[in-house]
């Protein structure tokens, strides 16, 4: 049998030929066989909420990056952005599945059919106020330079968090972080190299890189403020205090901008959490409509 046939046959057979939910990634349980016991002294609701925060950042940024497909300035870069989005989508899958494994499903489970995996139910059937993504990843792409500036900040911040999360008392979170670090380091390097190229390029690319950086910097304001959930989980050795990564993030961003001959914008004052508490501007409903609309219109569709 030709290999091309076996790939689809294998998936079809695995589901008894009964058809598979038409949306989402859930061909199989991404945590199949992983020990998902909650560590002692940790509130499962907190752990699930924290996984949603980290998972939603990845899911929403993946969706934003995917919007460049068919629009990127060159084919290789389109492939790059799509690959970065795929890595983030993989992280989101594991983190949302982890949230589901501790019973944090919000209202999604009542809207999603019983056969839809947890991570898909959470991605497709939560309402906007249940999303825990930060304004940094929710903001529209802007032009390519702004997309790169945002990607640099997001990858730098997430890499710093994940590097510390490798020591989390939750072994699932620690394992997801250890894997994510390798991917995020690659994303950060890619965005950093692009910003150098744009900042230290032509007058036009320099001006647009500076404008992109200037537009993104205010979104740093709430990245280093812990929610109550994060504070409790940090004390329990499960989460990372976002304030603890500020210096590392700042030093990496300063280094890249300086070498890119870009002016460092003023570092914004710390702000209270917004997106982490489900408070979002008008951009997120529009993004979710694109992400969720078809699945919510045809929740029973199979292929």
């Amino acid at each position, binding site marked *: 049998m030709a290999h091309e046939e076996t790939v689809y046959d294998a998936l079809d057979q695995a589901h008894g030929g009964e058809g598979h939910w038409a949306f989402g990634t859930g061909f199989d349980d991404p945590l199949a066989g992983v020990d998902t016991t909650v560590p002692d002294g940790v509130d499962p609701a907190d752990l699930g909420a924290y996984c949603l925060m980290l998972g939603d950042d990845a899911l929403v940024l993946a969706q934003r990056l995917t919007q460049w497909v068919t629009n990127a300035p060159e084919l290789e870069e389109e492939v790059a952005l799509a690959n970065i989005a795929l890595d983030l989508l993989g992280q989101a899958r594991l983190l949302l599945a982890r949230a589901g494994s501790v019973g944090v499903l919000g209202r999604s489970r009542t809207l999603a059919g019983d056969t839809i995996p947890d991570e898909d139910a959470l991605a497709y059937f939560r309402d906007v106020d249940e999303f825990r993504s930060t304004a940094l990843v929710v903001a529209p792409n802007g032009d390519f330079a702004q997309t790169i500036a945002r990607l640099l900040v997001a990858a730098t911040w997430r890499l710093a968090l994940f590097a510390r999360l490798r020591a989390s008392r939750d072994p699932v979170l620690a394992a997801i972080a*250890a894997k994510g670090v390798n991917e995020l380091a690659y994303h950060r390097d890619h965005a950093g190299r692009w910003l150098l190229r744009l900042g230290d390029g032509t007058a036009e690319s320099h001006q647009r890189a500076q404008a992109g950086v200037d537009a993104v910097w205010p979104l740093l304001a709430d990245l280093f403020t812990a929610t109550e959930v994060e504070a409790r989980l940090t004390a329990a050795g499960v989460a990372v205090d976002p304030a603890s990564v500020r210096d590392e993030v700042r030093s990496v961003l300063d280094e890249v901008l300086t070498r890119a001959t870009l002016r460092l914008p003023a570092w914004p004052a710390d702000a209270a959490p917004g997106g982490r508490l489900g408070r979002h501007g008008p951009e997120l409903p529009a993004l979710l409509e694109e992400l969720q609309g078809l699945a919510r219109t045809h929740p029973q569709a199979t292929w």
Partner: protein
Amino acid sequence: MSMMTSTADPRVVAESVTDPELPMISLSDLGVLRDVRIERDGSVVVEITPTYTGCPAMGVMRADLVHALHEAGFADVDVRTVLTPAWSTDWITPEGRRKLLEAGIAPPGLAPVRSEGPVPLQLGTTHRTASCPLCGSADTEELSEFSATACKALRRCRSCQEPFEHVKEI
């Protein structure tokens, strides 16, 4: 419960299953197959680890393993995901590297050293190098840090001008 009805070695069967996206190489040679064992009740437990977190081939790998073991007479097969330690290209076997090369894909060099602390930033031109899998020239350049699958970058040979894929070190 189902009994073991096969005299085949489940490890040999599992090791014969190939990667869906790199069909020239087995899951074993790719370093994705971490363990194969028979439990006391006769069931076969297979442990696999994803290359990249978002690798869409995991579901197919799982299904291919179950299918191959069923065909070999093992009725009860449990394929488990192992997330830690994270997969590294250093786990690709010499045999796997040879097969990649034969298929025109440059195998990875040594993976970056992993430490527990902050990850150093790489802003210069990429330090990755790869010899051309077609003509053997070391004079190659990177076209893109990403390629058609999550695990590869795209390069071009300056000697024979051919583009080729390179399994990137991770």
